[in-house]
């Protein structure tokens, strides 16, 4: 005996569906789609927030193309993301592997790795300011012990970037936890099979762990790129809102913020925001493209 499907009442079902999904689509419209549309429009305007926008076409984008400060912040942010994202990912995977070992005090070590993530950024920045102080900083002790002059972390563009990349590793707690969860999902049989085939730890890591972990690596890479392109608070605190030595600690979002709220050039800042979105989309697309060959989904 076949059962007839329940009769649907088109318009009232649609209404009910819209009503029940309204928290999402209303929020999406009000807090995302409309503001994005508005920001796209004002990116084509001269707009200070305080006076009505004046349409100027693509002038903001043209100016950005010839703005040396814009070029500098793009360069700085790109270099920062190219250095900090792979380094943080490698450190996070390494820490996750260590934390996955069954040792006494495992929970304590896991808490220690995660702890910096919940320390307020301002407090962490002040602590790092002291740790990197050329005279009293604990981070410079190895140089002192070796009888060498430690680098002036805050006083040249290169060392400022190096300092920020080092500090970025401090915040690997979140990706480490995600990698740890990923490691615990890898079936034990895969390791047993590899061991039967005579694979030692390095080969097991290379041929089992890494491929099985690759979807998690992909996820973390994308999140890390998003975070790197939005770096703001850390350099802002360390260099007290200034661009740092030779502008070496001036990043994309800082310049965007300055244009919006210090220079009152909201149109220019909106143009920057759209370019930032495009850059991030492009980088994400490139990673997805590369991931087709490198990421292995179980069962795929």
């Amino acid at each position: 005996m076949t059962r007839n499907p329940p009769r649907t009442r088109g318009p009232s079902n649609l209404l009910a569906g819209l009503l029940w999904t309204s928290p999402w689509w209303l929020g999406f419209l009000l807090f995302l789609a409309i503001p994005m549309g508005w920001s796209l429009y004002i990116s084509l305007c001269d707009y200070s927030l305080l006076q009505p926008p004046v349409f100027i076409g693509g002038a903001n984008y043209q100016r950005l193309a010839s703005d040396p400060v814009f070029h500098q912040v793009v360069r700085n942010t790109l270099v920062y993301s190219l250095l900090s994202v792979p380094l943080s990912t490698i450190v996070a995977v390494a820490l996750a592997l260590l934390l996955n070992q069954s040792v006494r005090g495992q929970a304590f070590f896991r808490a220690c790795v995660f702890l910096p993530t919940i320390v307020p950024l301002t407090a962490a920045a002040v602590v790092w300011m002291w740790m990197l102080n050329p005279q009293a900083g604990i981070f410079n002790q190895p140089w002192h012990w070796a009888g060498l002059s430690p680098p002036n972390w805050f006083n040249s563009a290169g060392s400022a970037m190096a300092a920020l990349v080092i500090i970025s590793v401090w915040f690997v707690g979140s990706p480490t936890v995600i990698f740890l969860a990923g490691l615990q999902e890898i079936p034990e049989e895969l390791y047993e099979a590899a061991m039967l085939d005579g694979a030692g730890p390095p080969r097991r890591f290379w041929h089992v762990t890494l491929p099985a972990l690759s979807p998690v690596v992909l996820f973390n890479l994308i999140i890390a790129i998003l975070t790197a392109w939005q770096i703001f608070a850390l350099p802002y605190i360390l260099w007290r809102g200034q661009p740092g030595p030779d502008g070496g600690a001036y990043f994309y979002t800082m310049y965007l913020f300055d244009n919006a709220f210090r220079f009152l050039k909201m149109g220019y800042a909106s143009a920057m925001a759209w370019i930032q979105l495009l850059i991030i989309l492009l980088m994400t697309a490139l990673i997805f493209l590369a991931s087709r060959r490198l990421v292995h989904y179980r069962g795929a």
Partner: protein
Amino acid sequence: MNIRSWLLALVLIAPAALLLAFGPRGRVEIPDNRRVIRYWEKWTGVEGRAITDLVDRFNNTVGAQRGLFVEYNAVSNIEQRLLIATAGGDPPDLAGLIDSRVPQYAAQNALLPLDDLVRDAAIDLELLKPIWLELGRYDGKLYALPSTPFTIALYYNRTLFRQAGLDPDRPPQTIAELDQAVERLTRRDEQGKITQLGFTMSPAMLGWWSWVWPNFFDGRLWDGQRYALDSSAGVAAAEWIWQMRERLGRQAALDFEAAAGPIESAENPFLSGRLAMVFQGPWMANWIRNYAPSLDYAVAPFPSSTTGRRHVFASADVFVIPAGAKHPRDAMVFLAWMQRPDVLEELCKRHGKVSPFRTPRSAFFDGHPNPFVRVFDEIASSPDAFGFPGMPMWAQVEAELLNLMQTLLRGNRSPEQAIRYTQQRIDLIVNEYQHMAAKRRGEQ
């Protein structure tokens, strides 16, 4: 639920309930039949207490008589919040800003001109030193009244002066004398590393105002149309900075400056005796009292290149009424009360600032937290006193001038190249602004 669960729930809920019933209130209780004046300020801590005491006094006296009530709110990032509130059509009735922002906001019609309101409120502007009014003017109109003004002067370490064979009672009188003092006050170790620095303009070492130096070479670079960095004063200042760095040794100076500790600590280079002279404001005395109470120091006007001229950088926190404020006339009642010498001087004294009045009351100086307040006060009367350039696009120009300072300190470009490059950047900023302003006027 068992008894343990009930107890646990009680332990968690009881404090929350008590807090709700008896805890602090987010809003001030406003007495009935009072019109509320919303006042936003940036001050917290000691400075916040000083203004809230005065607000309470107003509310209990004049406010009670006139049916007004000032609701004080300390707001972080006040500039951004005021901007957004004004753009959103719901600004406060009164706000505290830094004077450098006044031209920018005034040019955007975000502030109410105060000339008529001041006249109607019978505030006697003649009582104020001219410079403090000048800071609040833009395009011929008054947009701001001073709240806590300050001048910047030369703090110098008398002990280090004595050790260098300099007369601690005779600070440098000209830029040339300052250069000589820097030579003698700078010390190096055997490897040539600087261990004590005479003076630096570096932003890393309390040199907060990178743009001021051409003013001490008799220049006022903004004429209302162009910021003439390439004028003789601009070039002379750049050359001076460049040459001082050459004499100190660029890398040695940079290495020394990299180790500067936080300013509000005993690691402040002037407090720790590593920096002999510094260009700073009256608040420096608070840090000295807290972190280096035995420091033997004095304060003098910063020297100028020309003998006999006394260029003085003056700035102020100011009161403004945002455009769109609901009760501007009520706000003026409070402002008129605040502008009374006894009231405003109490605020300035508690903030460690100078008096804005031509003739401060003697009580103002008695027990003032800065022992050299008379110096700061006196130099504000100089005919050569100057404030931030009245440029609506100043924030952008200032960023370029900070870059120029970094370039000169690091020696990335020669002074001529650096000035040429920065001048081009500033011309572009000014021209773009003027072009858009003209376009807007045309549309109106």
